[in-house]
């Protein structure tokens, strides 16, 4: 592979493409993916266990410290992973520059806003009376 590479040895060593930050996005997507394998399976099992649960039972479950921590991690990592993925989809399919930029800004703001709403809801239940 290295024999036919057009990249300089320095370029390969630094590991940056022309945009200078591609590797970070790629790496963040993978790290969050690995975290979501475990968090996602826990979440799927939890949703099944609480199918048709009433409010009291659901709140009592979410109040547990382990549950609350796992749910906070799930919400945070899910929205981070989703935003990273949606960013690539927008970059690949939206070719009008102003529309691409505004879509990216809107997508990231909505993702982070929803993440904070979800995190706040979990904290309110965990610390609420």
């Amino acid at each position, binding site marked *: 592979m290295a024999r036919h590479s057009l990249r300089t040895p320095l370029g390969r060593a630094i590991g940056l493409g022309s945009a200078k930050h591609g590797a970070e996005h790629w790496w963040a997507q993978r790290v969050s993916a690995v975290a979501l394998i475990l968090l996602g399976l826990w979440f799927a099992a939890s949703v099944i266990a609480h199918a048709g649960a009433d409010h009291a039972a659901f709140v009592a479950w979410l109040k547990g410290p382990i549950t609350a921590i796992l749910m906070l991690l799930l919400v945070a990592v899910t929205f981070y992973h989703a935003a990273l*993925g949606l960013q690539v989809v927008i970059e690949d399919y939206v070719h009008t520059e102003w529309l691409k930029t505004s879509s990216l800004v809107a997508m990231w703001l909505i993702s982070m806003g929803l993440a904070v709403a979800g995190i706040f809801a979990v904290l309110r239940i965990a610390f609420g009376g």
Partner: protein
Amino acid sequence: MTPVERPLSPFLIYKPQLTSVLSFSHRAAGVVLAVGTVFLVWWLVAAATSERAFTTAQWFFASWLGLLLLLGWTLAFFFHLLNGIRHLFWDAGMGFDLRTTYASGWTVVAGSLVLTIIAFAAGVAMRS
């Protein structure tokens, strides 16, 4: 006069392959799951708001539309999960040859269908 066998344009003879279909489906499933996160936040915020709000959310997820959406998200979830693990192996430089790629691809298809059926059956069993 015998007709001459001329080469056909690629778009006339193009057949989708398992590899390309799964590649696109991985993206599509990711987008579907991203839409689902809005409902996850609704579920959590409803639980934090009031008993009435949570009952409304639970009623929606138990309705036929809610169940249909949950079925779609369950399938998208298990497919994206299994195919994501397949991608992580590729990222580690493993399983690139054509035989393994097709074997892992069909495993992902079968696995996501089986897990969706198991998860849904378990959910229905929990409710009753």
